[in-house]
């Protein structure tokens, strides 16, 4: 059996046996996705476990970002996209792909952090407060508390507490991304979706954010798309390997990286293609 690449120390892990018995947070079943006539996702089925980090890996164009953006119906913003199949959120049991479901509501339950930091042209405080205001919070004291809580959870509070009302774009790239994380988690979403959150950042900023994510999973379910296999190995509990729109393999990260079941998975992980 070929050797899997050296994994730089898992940050935290839990026994996988008990996980499979817990209720999954999101159940994706038979998901097909079309950009116009182009089919990008083929019959993806997987159960995303609650309060764990699930990584989506695969070569460029495999559909991992497309899959992530199905979760909060981001594709609805552009013409010509079509979903088939179901994505059921537990414990509600609602299929969020159903036409009767309001994407705005879905997006209030799922947070998203993007590949490039995208803070609003507003102050640091107002960035984090944006989602809270959308959900009706308006009392100053309440907002102050929630903003501070979110910034602490994003490991940014100490660095910005004295300049909350300065413009967000004055922060460094890494700080901006942590601000975007704070913004996403301020509203207590059930699930946070990370789309290659550290690909534009330096290693120090990257490791800060990885630490953050591992802390975060105690409270929220995390799905993260990443190009960086070592990162997936470092922080995720479950990994999904995708290729050309199909889910090739899905399982416990440790096992997948040391003993992948499918040959394609093994080829990708050992770097034979990518």
């Amino acid at each position, binding site marked *: 059996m070929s050797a899997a690449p050296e994994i730089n120390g898992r940050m935290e892990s839990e026994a996988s046996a008990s996980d499979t018995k817990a209720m999954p947070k999101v159940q994706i079943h038979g998901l097909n996705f079309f950009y116009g006539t182009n089919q990008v996702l083929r019959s993806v089925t997987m159960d995303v476990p609650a309060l764990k980090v699930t990584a989506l890996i695969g070569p460029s164009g495999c559909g991992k970002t497309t899959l992530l953006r199905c979760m909060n119906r981001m594709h609805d913003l552009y013409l010509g996209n079509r979903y088939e199949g179901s994505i059921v959120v537990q*414990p509600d049991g609602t299929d969020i792909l159903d036409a009767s479901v*309001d994407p*705005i*509501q879905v997006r*209030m339950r799922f947070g998203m952090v993007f590949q490039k930091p995208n803070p609003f042209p507003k102050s640091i405080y107002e960035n984090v407060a944006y989602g809270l205001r959308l*959900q*009706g919070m308006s009392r100053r004291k309440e907002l102050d508390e929630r903003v501070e809580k979110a910034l602490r959870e994003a490991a940014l509070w100490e660095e910005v507490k004295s300049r909350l009302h300065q413009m967000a774009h004055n922060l460094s790239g890494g700080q901006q991304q942590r601000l975007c994380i704070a913004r996403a988690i301020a509203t207590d979403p059930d699930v946070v979706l990370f789309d290659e959150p550290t690909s534009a950042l330096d290693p120090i900023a990257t490791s800060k954010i990885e630490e953050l994510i591992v802390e975060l999973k105690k409270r929220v379910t995390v799905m993260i798309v990443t190009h960086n296999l070592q990162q997936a190995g470092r922080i995720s509990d479950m990994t999904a390997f995708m290729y050309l729109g199909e889910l090739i393999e899905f399982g416990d990260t440790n096992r997948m990286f040391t003993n992948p079941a499918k040959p394609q998975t093994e080829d990708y992980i050992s770097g034979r293609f990518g």
Partner: protein
Amino acid sequence: MRPDLFHALQAKRASRRRSIDQWFRRLGLFLTLTTLGILGILLLNLAMNGLARVDWNFLSSFPSRRAGEAGVLSAWVGTLLLMMVTAGAAIPFGLAAGIYLEEYAPKNRWTDFVEINISNLAGVPSILYGLMALGLFVYQFRFGQSVLAGGLALACLVLPIVIVATREALRTIPSSIREAAFALGATRWQAVWHHLLPYSTGGIATGVILAMSRAIGESAPLITIGALTFIAFLPPAPWVDHAPFVSFDWLFSPFTALPIQMFNWVSRPGEEFQANAAAAGLILMVITLSMNAAAILLRRRAQRNITW
């Protein structure tokens, strides 16, 4: 987090956001169509009041104190002659300036200044061009209150339009084309003449048409230099029936123009003069709208024909 309550409250918010979006979409569509509709109302209004007046007599008669006998002959001839001067001055200078600034001039403080200058000129009120023409062309250069002075005033007015259109048209050509020409040993001028100008003709022509359309509709500068509103004669013709067969006397002749004539009639009380004004306005609208429409179609076709 209690899922049920969370959902109910947020569900209401979400649906309110959706209905606000729908409402704004309807408002936006309504306002867009209404604003565009104003154009139609304008045309309809002019047609209702003036169409009846537009006939061969109207087009071939001079203005008259009797509204029923008045016509736009001197006006449209004047406009035509003016446009000859305007085009003759604005197009060469505008093209030259556009080519020079886009292809030749180094990027320094001076060219920066020139750009700010052009952008400012585009925003200078048209009447100031008339004042300049009055002081400079009419008196200083002693052209008098003539077609030449008027045509040059309008040429200065539309010069920025031609320059900007030329520059934008040249800008859309990717630099790889220029590099290909240079690599074959062409001089800069050869590259411009053989490649860049032919490829950008569509964009330049669009700009020229828009510039001329603007010039035809302008009246303030012409009033300022003293275009007379009651001209019952035509400027001398540009041709004569003896050598050298071409005459330039018309350049120094007093004149009137379509928009001036319309202005004159609008200022007179009485329905009949107002009908004349509407008729003149209708002719003006037809000319300027069709020129603009032609420019738009030309721009569309130019964009489609050459894909880089």
